[in-house]
């Protein structure tokens, strides 16, 4: 028995993440699983495995906040919050200096700006197409016959990144083939791909104020992404402690707060 647990479940288009906190807000467990075709299965697995990690039981769950693309598919959710707000909430906890969060997910890339109190100021999502997202990198990695991790490793050896201009994943793929044919170094082409994402991100940022923080699966797995973001945006990028779990972590924090608020509402409920 581990006491009351507070869970955040982030059902993304590619991966489902779960984070469990205890009453004091300490991290007790977490898990990530591919979202697959059936969100409910992914959610079950993510929660069950996180509970194992936390040495807790389902009955210990005091409050659950779900978030992400499939946020409405979490049957045990007490509250549904968008990934924009959960990322904002999470960032304030993992580094209070962060004012602009760059979240590079599978399906979309988000820029989330918060004020000194953690309140949302502005947010942007990339427009529909895969360019500038994890899917963009994955699809080109597949075309090149390698994994995302291998693409990252290759990019880190680059000395002179090439420029990939296209806004469209398909056209960018064609550009890569042209660069290969032109004899450009594979590592420079690989870094060029990361740089093209960084350039798209730069276009989405409304203006600099405070520190940049980065989250999301691509940030978790690709060192090259942080490096090129720092070059493109001209400054340090603070990487979230568990980049891929940042949304679930924010959701778990909101679960803790929502539960406390619910408790205080009950405490003050009229009795007569």
């Amino acid at each position: 028995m581990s006491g009351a647990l507070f869970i955040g479940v982030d059902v993304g288009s590619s991966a489902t993440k779960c984070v469990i906190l205890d009453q004091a807000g300490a991290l007790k467990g977490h898990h990530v699983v591919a979202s697959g075709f059936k969100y409910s299965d992914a959610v079950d697995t993510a929660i069950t495995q996180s509970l194992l990690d936390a040495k807790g039981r389902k009955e210990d769950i005091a409050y659950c906040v779900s978030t992400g693309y499939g946020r409405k598919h979490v049957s045990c959710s007490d509250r549904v919050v968008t990934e924009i707000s959960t990322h904002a909430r999470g960032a304030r906890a993992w580094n209070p200096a962060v004012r602009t969060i760059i979240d590079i997910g599978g399906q979309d890339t988000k820029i989330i700006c918060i004020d000194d109190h953690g309140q949302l100021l502005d947010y942007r999502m990339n427009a529909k197409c895969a360019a500038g997202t994890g899917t963009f990198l994955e699809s080109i990695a597949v075309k090149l016959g390698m994994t995302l991790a291998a693409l990252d490793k290759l990019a880190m050896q680059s000395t002179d990144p090439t420029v990939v201009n296209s806004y469209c994943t398909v056209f960018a793929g064609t550009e890569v083939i042209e660069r290969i044919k032109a004899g450009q170094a594979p590592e420079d082409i690989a870094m060029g791909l990361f740089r093209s994402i960084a350039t798209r991100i730069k276009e989405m940022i409304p203006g600099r104020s405070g520190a940049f923080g980065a989250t999301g699966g691509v940030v978790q797995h690709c060192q090259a992404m942080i490096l090129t973001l720092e070059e493109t945006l001209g400054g340090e990028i603070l990487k979230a402690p568990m980049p891929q779990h940042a949304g679930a972590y924010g959701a778990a924090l909101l679960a803790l707060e929502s539960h406390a608020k619910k408790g205080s509402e009950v405490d003050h409920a009229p009795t007569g």
Partner: protein
Amino acid sequence: MSTIAKRVPINARKKLQSLMREYFVSLDAAAADSDRRVAWCTSVGPCEILSAMGYEVYFPENHGALLGARKISHECIPAAVGVGYCAESCSYMTSDIGAALSGISPLTEAFGIAGPPKPDLLSYSTNQCREVQDWWNFFGRRHDAPVMGIRPPSHLGQVTDAHVAFVRGELNQLITRIESHSGTKLDWSRLETVVDLSSRASSLWRQVLDLAQAQPSPITFFDGLIHMAPVILMRGSQEAIDYYDMLLAEMNERVEEGTAAVPNERFRVYWDGMPVWPKVRELSEKFFDLGVSIAASTYCNSWAFEEYDGGDPLEWMARTSTEIFINRDETFKQQFLLDMCKRFSIDGLIFHNARTCPNNTNSRFGMAQRLRDEAGMPVLVFDGDLSDSRFFSTAQTMTNIEAFVEQLEGCCQ
């Protein structure tokens, strides 16, 4: 959030349905009758002149909107693209042209008529955009009918007497051209009557929209999209006036009784830009469920003109059609939006970036950011389109809207 609260339907809608049917059936009959004449006109074009000269007036933009609302635009657009109309240009135009090429019309199912009435002439004003000119030209060629337009000065800050005089001159020339084509002289007293009727309908419509200043609001943008039809299609008729008299009375009653368009109204939001016709229902339900009332919009106000107080009817037409929001510069538009937000006690602003209508999209030159700073309220810009649903991502937009409401709630604080 649960949808426990129920919508209170607007009773006038029944009357609206019969009015619309009469309007389209009459147009259809006019097109088939060699003694009657049909003119096509842009939505803020010189329709009063056409009516006064005995034409029955049809508005193709309405057909574009219907194609979108009935979710058939995407079936029509490829045919227009195939004959050289860019898929990124006005989707009212591409869907309307494509519908004609494919023999599709939502008017068949809705009103039992074959489709848009064949025009005897087509008339436009570029006070809204230059696209209408090429759209009309397509149908002019197709129906072998003359296309006669006016081109007022655009992107104006102040509308000066010189601007009005210029447009008045253009309208005068238009009258001469129509007279020579039709062989009928304009009866100026008839024009005065039509302009008076037009202005009265418009004024009543404005009063209806202004009642949304009440809290809770008795009517939203989504209701407005339905009930604005007569002020566009039947402008200049007694029927439009009677309709808005009835709607205004119902809205006044709602305000007195505190009947809300969105029960439990938590936030009041302004909508700038075009509607997303194929997604109107989903969006309306989403805002309803979130307790958000879209209390005011640029779009519904586009047909709320200054009143006509007698005098030169042509001058009134020149002034009102030049003064419209879409024809103004960024500074004017920004101030207009700020004033509207104040008047309607708005908590947040939404800009629809309609991908195929840059003319009626106001978030492309930094206005959203400037307004957020100046009005100090949350502003959301989302990508979509008026008719082409391929430019719209439901999941992404709904997330954006929910996050916007979370921002209004101060969720992360």
